[in-house]
């Protein structure tokens, strides 16, 4: 098993380290208490999911959508659309006609 803190039992379907990695991928900050709780919940759910492993799916095509749709093409024309003012109306922060965000590139000297 990879990772896993001292408290995570070897039988757990998901290790504490995996919970932390997944939270980072999902961009959700979790406290240590939340990590432990999440590990317990996900372990119970993944244990239940195990029953799928027993099904013979050899030769079965995966189903991605319930109906077969053909992707229709349309003319590339300008239709009704939101103006910049409306599109930006819900933005938590804006500058002129742009969405404003914190600095993206962080150097060793910190954001700045």
């Amino acid at each position, binding site marked *: 098993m990879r990772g896993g803190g001292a408290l995570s039992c070897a039988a757990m379907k998901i290790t504490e380290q995996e919970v932390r990695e997944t939270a980072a991928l999902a961009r959700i900050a979790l406290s240590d208490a939340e990590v432990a709780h999440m590990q317990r919940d*996900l372990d119970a759910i*993944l244990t*239940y999911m195990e029953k799928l492993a027993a099904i013979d799916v050899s030769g079965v095509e995966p189903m991605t959508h*319930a*109906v077969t749709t053909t992707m229709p093409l349309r003319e590339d024309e300008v239709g009704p659309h939101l103006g910049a003012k409306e599109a930006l109306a819900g933005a*938590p922060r804006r500058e002129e006609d742009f969405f404003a*965000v914190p600095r993206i590139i962080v150097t060793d000297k910190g954001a700045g």
Partner: protein
Amino acid sequence: MEDWCWRGAADIARAVAAREVSALEVTRAHLARIAAIDGRLGAYLLVDEEGALAQAAAVDERVARGEPPGPLAGVPVGLKDLFVTRGLTTTAGSRILADWVPPYDGTAVARLRQAGAVILGKLNMDEFAMGSSNENSAFKPCRNPWDLARVPGGSSGGSAAAVTAGLCALALGTDTGGSIRQPAALSGCVGLKPTYGRVSRYGVVAFASSLDQVGPLGRTALDCALALEVIAGRDPLDATSIDLPVPRYRDATRAPVSIAGLRIGVPEEFFATGLDPEVGERVRAAIAQLEALGARVVNVSLPYSEHAIATYYLVATAEASSNLARYDGVRYGLRVPGRDLIDTYCKTRAAGFGDEVKRRIMLGTYALRAGYYDAYYLRAQKVRTLIKQDFDRAFTQCDAIATPTSPVPAFRIGERAADPLAMYLADIYTISCNLAGLPGLSVPCGFTREDLPVGLQLLGPPLGEATLLGLAAAYQGATDWHERRPPLA
């Protein structure tokens, strides 16, 4: 006046067009009932009194000018707060969208407005439609109209409670794994989940895109048929919307409805362990009633349905983890500033999402991770094919399938909240319909000894909505469960 709160949508539209009543009177009656009762029920997250009265006045003006006022003229409608509404706060039941005022209307909402409907407000729900009890609403609990200590079902709990309690004539909900049918069953109204693609999802906050579908809740099959006629059909803004003509569903529900010779499939797997005996009894009695009305009962088998929950919670959470990536605090919604952009994302999502939404995003992200994809997501998609093939086979032997909608009647608030897996198991009978993309309907079929409603679920082949509505209408024509009113003064 109160009486108008118990008239059906079709009846109200007819009366408004015939000038027997004004849209304003009907709207005022509903607003008054909401003001009197909803403080205890919690069905509405937002009541748009001013907007509703303005829409009603506009309908009355059209009638006065002799213009056709539309098939839903003056019908008071509530919308699950997952429907994007121009100028009206749309929260999806989440703190992350608590203050979002959308700049546009979704297609179903625009079609309702065009048909003369009066939108009363936005209805309570589980956050991002994730839940089976409405307990995951970030704002307040919604209660069951028959017993305020119990859940109304979910995720469209506010929609079902409002319709059942006479706080709107019609509501829209969404159904990804049972979120229209299960609350309809637990609260006591009719709920229809149409075929995947039958109704446009443009302007509906996405949960799991291969499963989500919009549908109506009403007190009768006729009212649901009327609503479906208005909202169904091709929409260039939703590439998955089906490009086929919309039938006059109302014709399928008009008395006398003949269901003679229709074959009703009964799958033994849906009457096994875990089914509350009283629910089973009521549902079997309802099937016997359909038989008495001329339908023929045949046994069918859906052997892979026992794997539906595991399959669903992998497919749905994987899709949700991707769909909900858009809530990043940049373009709309909550932002919690962090030391850099990534930290801002993480803090925003930690503060904005509730526990169940985080759990599902985590599960979906995990199932899609390199190294786990084949074992979880891909395998689930293959089992989904097997579940679909079960139904394909069954529908060569029958025209519709009858089952319980929920294995249990409404449970107590808090009873299952601590155990996410126990909550997932509440969806056992509704989920396979979404995986297969089929239409499904729940119709009230009696009460338990504790006076809690029980729902009969009817499932049909793709585009079989008219058959389901016809069966439900025939059943309602022979029973009066839907005429009982919950004890809310």
